[in-house]
């Protein structure tokens, strides 16, 4: 990798294909493995929240308001007696929805735009480039905040606002990659054989961009999870009484000073979740390093 440092001699490894190699590199990464395990837990909890949660997310226990963690309420209750554990379990749903759906829509918009702009060039490329410039000139939170204000806060509108700002990254990645793949010999050969452009795009360009696109899918999610928590914290995301981790912090009000369980558990959950998604993305980056195998 570098000079000045002697790397241990690696034993020869039988080449087992790109994805097998990627998985081998991924497995060695501690944070990545933590990420994939914790993300799986989040997904399971989100899907089975109604079965797993001991109480309903809106169910109040008037006799035990603001109670500290106990056997009855493992993470305590909030000011109106709602069980925090159950609320945190249900809060994984908006978190995943915002992260995954936004990223899926962003990819569906950004990747075709990027590939076509990179392949075709010309006026279409110019327009896409100016749009990308416009959206990257501003920090995402400014635009999102502004859009949310206009659209009024709700889960759907948060997804819309975040999509408007986050299609840019996959678009940039796929455009850049297309620009280099376009010049490869096999793309040239395909053109010489008279294969229609759309088939070159789908059969030759898209598979080449796939590993990097997988990474750019993963890398956007921690930011989106953060965005959901942050916007809900400011009162601009998930509206009460529906649970969201950020909103639990935002609405802890004055109570948190005397009832620390009200913010410690949501805080930990936010940190562990973002760390898991980040670890997953970082692990993918090293696992499918473009310099290693493409």
């Amino acid at each position, binding site marked *: 990798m*570098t000079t000045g440092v002697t790397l241990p001699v690696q034993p020869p490894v039988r080449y087992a294909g790109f994805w097998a190699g990627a998985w081998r590199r991924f497995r060695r990464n501690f944070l990545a493995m933590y990420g994939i395990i914790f993300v799986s837990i989040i997904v399971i909890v989100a899907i089975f929240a109604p079965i797993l949660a001991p109480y309903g997310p809106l169910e109040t226990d008037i006799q035990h308001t603001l109670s500290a963690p106990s056997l009855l309420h493992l993470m305590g209750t909030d000011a109106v007696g709602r069980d925090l554990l159950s609320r945190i379990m249900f809060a994984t749903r908006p978190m995943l929805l915002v992260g995954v759906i936004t990223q899926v829509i962003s990819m569906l918009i950004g990747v075709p735009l990027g590939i076509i702009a990179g392949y075709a060039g010309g006026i279409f490329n110019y327009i896409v480039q100016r749009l990308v*410039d*416009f959206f990257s000139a501003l920090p995402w939170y400014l635009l999102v905040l502004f*859009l949310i204000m*206009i659209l009024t806060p709700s889960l759907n509108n948060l997804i819309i606002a975040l999509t408007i700002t986050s299609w840019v990254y996959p678009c940039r990645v796929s455009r850049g990659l297309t620009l280099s793949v376009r010049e490869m010999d096999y793309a040239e050969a395909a053109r010489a054989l008279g294969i229609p452009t759309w088939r070159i795009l789908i059969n030759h360009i898209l598979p080449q961009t796939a590993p990097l696109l997988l990474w750019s899918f993963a890398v956007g999610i921690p930011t989106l999870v953060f965005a959901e928590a*942050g916007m809900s914290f*400011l009162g*601009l995301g998930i509206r009460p009484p529906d649970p969201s981790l950020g909103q639990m912090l935002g609405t802890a009000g004055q109570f948190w000073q005397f009832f620390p369980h009200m913010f410690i558990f949501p805080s930990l959950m936010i*940190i562990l979740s973002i760390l898991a998604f980040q670890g997953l993305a970082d692990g993918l980056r090293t696992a499918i390093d473009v310099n290693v195998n493409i």
Partner: protein
Amino acid sequence: MLRHILRSLAGILWVILLLSIFTFVLSRAVPGGPWDVGDIKFPLTEHQIDLYKAKYGLDKPILEQYLLWLRNAVTLDFGSPYLAPEMTVTGLIMKLLPYSALVGGLAATLALILGIILGAIAASKQNSLLDIIINSFAIVIGTIPGFVLGFLLAYYFGVKLHWFPTGGWENQPKYLVLPVVAYGFPAIGGVARWTRQCMVEAMSADYVRTAHSKGVRQAGVMARHVLRNAAIPMVTSFLPMIPGMMTGSMFIERTFGIPGLGQYFVNSANTRDYPLIIGITIFWAVLITVTYLITDILYVIIDPRVRLEAKKQ
């Protein structure tokens, strides 16, 4: 060079113009105006709202409103906030900016100093245990949202230990400590990782190997060859960070109750205070785009190999 600056300035104007149209049209396209949103104890009658709208010109067609706003904005007159008619938008921004700039500036300084030191250590001890520890620390700290860290810090150092106030603002340094740490610490992660990457790349260059083989001492190689080359990508990505952080974080300002720009931006949007929304948005956009331009120019100055015109092609 001059041509590039002029072209960039034209690009900035284009972005700002587009953004102002975007902001203007969208904010007015939404139902609910400044006088009928939120929890109002004594709602105004239709007639009163109409009078207010007429007073601020909101009854005119939107194109006319926009052109009027644009004409004033060119002379830096952004009007008055509806909720504080005695002030101008520019005046209010200038009054709020010092709070945000102080907290953000200190946080950026903290992040840069600690981040660069950690990154440089990690790079020079590459692939060692220390490197792995620093790298993991950088990832973990980088993923903690500032407002979450803010709560944890405020609880332990404010409520438990009584070292620092948990929030609020008075002109005393102790009110600054927790917000600065909560804002600056998560930024350390990114700075350290980028510093490490830049230095590792600079260390893998051929002339570094040459210097090593000539027998130049490790410290000499680091100072003369590695640091100077690693500094180029570092400066260009850390410089925009400073004004970016100085404009304030709405999350941190909300957590600690700092009366800064971010806090007011959220409020202005909540109350549909159109002049203030557009004023703060444009202010932020100008600041950020101009910083990028300055970074571009600086890029040429510190790296004589770069030609901006050639970069465009």
